[in-house]
């Protein structure tokens, strides 16, 4: 006779979908939701938690069952896998973090199940949630021919209307865009794929073209394949073109901007050919949320920085994506909607009136380089303090000029007589600015003296006037460093990158020797 225990064991061992996945428990899901999610998404899932008013984009309102990132057709409910991906990975470019490392599998699945209870659509048996079948990307996607085809469709299906000619989200329709809840929404900057909500891989982009982003102005282009306006391959080419606008890998944040010494004089123009040969460094910016008025929706997400010197002068090139050459009256209504949507910290007072603010950029240094061996003492990164000022270069888009001064905190800025030279170009969604100054200046008390071979602290601040940014409403970075490389006699010259490669190469040689000696099979 088979005993009961064995039978139970047999049943438990039988694979069934239910036993393979951790339980989806809405009671447990609710507990997780209340603890971790409700602060932004609200107790009733309406996307109206206490923190929501400060956010742009706003937290998802779960009650409509409407989701941006899906593998299903336009307007269809997402699959559980779609929702789990958003929970696990987060939504880049928004305040939604990934929860994979913070919550257990069971917690994440339970909260998923609970989130679905906010919308009656998930319980509606007439809703068929069917993921679309996606093809694989055709080869040659980074080649010139493929990208040319992609660009043709970028133009012919009207991507540029919102995303702009160069894909920086500055198209003619961009300032009118709103989401289904009437909040202002930005057309994605296609040069920053690491901020795409659904992922920046070419497969992700292709899927978004097929499915659209529900609740936003971004439509589905799937019909165009059915109606033979374009082929599936051509849609892939478009995705590949969009992918090509961003760097091959997300920018790595490094601490030091290296300024090589170049022969001749430093370039004063942002479009000088020299810049094509100089490494660029990415510095992320975040909203200024320390002092009033706080700003939670910074428009500039980061700056690309390049630097060169010629032994006498430094040229610093800062470029950043900005949808507008502010002030731009075409965006005044959009600015007003942003100011109405994103709450400041003086709640109760009405949102400020939109004004035609200019764009601004600041580069910050200490007045003097830190002294001593362990001397990395720097002024307060947020524009210094009353007794510990910082030296800043500032640039403003209208009237377009550069100047320098001492900042003593956010509120106080005293202009100095000496100013850096500034040249800027605005080109279809991008500012390119070059600031140049002599390494040594007469005013050694106030103006930082730039010396080769020293770690020169620097930080960045950016304002987009058309997003209502001015004063303390800005994007800020922390302290980084600028290093003016010493001239290297030819022959001895070895760049840090080269040095790294050499080291790596030597390492490989060592490994290969070890492999030969010990037998390759032991080294995987």
């Amino acid at each position, binding site marked *: 006779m088979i005993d009961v225990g064995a039978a139970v064991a047999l049943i438990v061992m039988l694979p069934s979908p239910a036993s393979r996945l951790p339980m989806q428990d809405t009671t447990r899901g609710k507990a997780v939701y209340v603890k971790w999610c409700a602060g932004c998404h609200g107790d009733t899932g309406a996307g109206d938690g206490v923190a929501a008013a400060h956010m742009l984009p706003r937290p998802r309102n779960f009650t409509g069952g409407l989701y941006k990132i899906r593998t299903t057709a336009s*307007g269809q409910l997402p699959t559980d896998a779609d929702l789990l991906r958003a929970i696990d990975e987060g939504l880049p470019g928004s305040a939604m973090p990934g929860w994979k490392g913070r919550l257990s599998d069971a917690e994440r699945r339970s909260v998923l199940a609970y989130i679905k209870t906010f919308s009656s659509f998930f319980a509606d048996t007439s809703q068929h949630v069917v993921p679309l079948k996606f093809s694989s990307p055709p080869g040659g996607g980074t080649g010139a021919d493929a990208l040319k085809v992609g660009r043709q469709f970028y133009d012919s299906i*009207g991507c540029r*209307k919102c995303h702009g000619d160069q894909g920086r989200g500055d198209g003619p*329709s961009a300032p009118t865009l709103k989401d289904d809840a009437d909040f202002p929404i930005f057309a994605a900057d296609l040069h920053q794929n690491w901020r795409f909500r659904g992922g920046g891989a070419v497969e992700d982009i292709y899927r978004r073209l097929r499915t659209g982003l529900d609740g936003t*102005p971004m439509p*589905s282009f799937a019909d165009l394949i059915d109606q033979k306006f374009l082929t599936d391959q051509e849609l892939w080419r478009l995705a590949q073109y969009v992918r090509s606008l961003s760097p091959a890998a997300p920018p790595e944040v490094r601490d030091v901007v290296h300024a090589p010494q170049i022969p001749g004089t430093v370039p004063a123009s942002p479009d000088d050919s020299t810049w094509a040969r100089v490494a660029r460094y990415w510095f992320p910016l975040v909203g200024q949320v320390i002092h009033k008025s706080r700003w939670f929706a910074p428009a500039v997400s980061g700056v690309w920085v390049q630097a060169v010197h010629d032994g006498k002068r430094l040229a610093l090139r800062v470029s950043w994506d900005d949808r507008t050459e502010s002030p731009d009256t075409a965006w005044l209504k959009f600015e007003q909607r942003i100011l109405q949507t994103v709450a400041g910290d003086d709640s109760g007072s009405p949102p400020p009136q939109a004004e035609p603010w200019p764009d601004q950029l600041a580069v910050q240094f200490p007045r003097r380089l830190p002294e001593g061996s362990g001397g990395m003492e720097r002024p307060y990164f947020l524009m210094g303090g009353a007794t510990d000022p910082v030296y800043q270069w500032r640039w403003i888009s209208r009237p377009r000029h550069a100047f320098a001064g001492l900042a003593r905190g956010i509120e106080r800025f005293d202009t100095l007589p000496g100013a850096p030279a500034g040249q800027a170009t605005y080109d279809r969604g991008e500012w390119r600015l070059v600031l140049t100054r002599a390494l040594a200046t007469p005013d050694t008390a106030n103006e930082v003296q730039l010396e080769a071979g020293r770690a020169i602290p620097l930080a960045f601040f950016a304002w987009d006037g058309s997003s209502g940014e001015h004063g303390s409403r800005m994007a800020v970075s922390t302290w980084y460093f600028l290093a003016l490389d010493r001239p290297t006699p030819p022959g001895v010259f070895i760049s840090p990158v080269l040095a790294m490669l050499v080291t790596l190469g030597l390492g490989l040689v060592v490994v290969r020797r070890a492999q030969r000696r010990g037998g390759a099979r032991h080294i995987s």
Partner: protein
Amino acid sequence: MRKLGAVAATGAVLALALAAWTRQPPPPAQGGGTVSGKVKFTGTKPTMPKIDMTEEPKCKAKYQGVPTDETVVVNANGTLANVFVYVKSGLPASYTASAPAGPVTLDQDGCRYHPHVLGIQVGQTLAIKNSDGILHNIKAKAKANRPFNISQPTVMTSNKTFDKPEVMVALECNVHGWMHAWLAVLPHPFFGVSGADGSFTLKGLPPGTYTIEAWHEKYGTQTATVTVAGSETKTADFSFAAK
């Protein structure tokens, strides 16, 4: 033989009669009652903003002057156009209507929707046509139904259907911020839109007492109660005031 024939004939008549008796309610075809009326407008006619179509020369070329927003269209005779009038309630619970085979067409022409306000039956095809040949996206911001947002970058037609009654579904184009239209999805064919003379007609109503609602995108809703019997025509006038 003759007798047998007579029996057969009687049977057929009986069968027909039985069929007629069991089929309820009667089809809302030629017969039935009619509710018609006018939608008046009182007060000062608002000035609608001009639409700047400079970005779309193809659309701009379709107009003599400068097109204006269609949120409020007051007719020359002082009536209000684009008011959706429909039977909100009063049909017997057993009433069912199958969707007509033909589609309702919504045309995007001159970067505007034609018609601006329209009704459709549950399950009926909405044919969304792009006559402009420039990029429009059409987004249906449905709440009871599932929404959609599709791209139409060329002259083409896309078909959509709606499963559930919903008054109203907002339709919009995001490429052209001024483009919007309103779609009502109903489980019956008793609806109409006030036209260029402000009049509307609901035909083929089974006998009964109905709540008729008049809906306007800016001025909200008004209701009237109307009882119709047989094939009579009843009048229900509405009046919206400027605000």
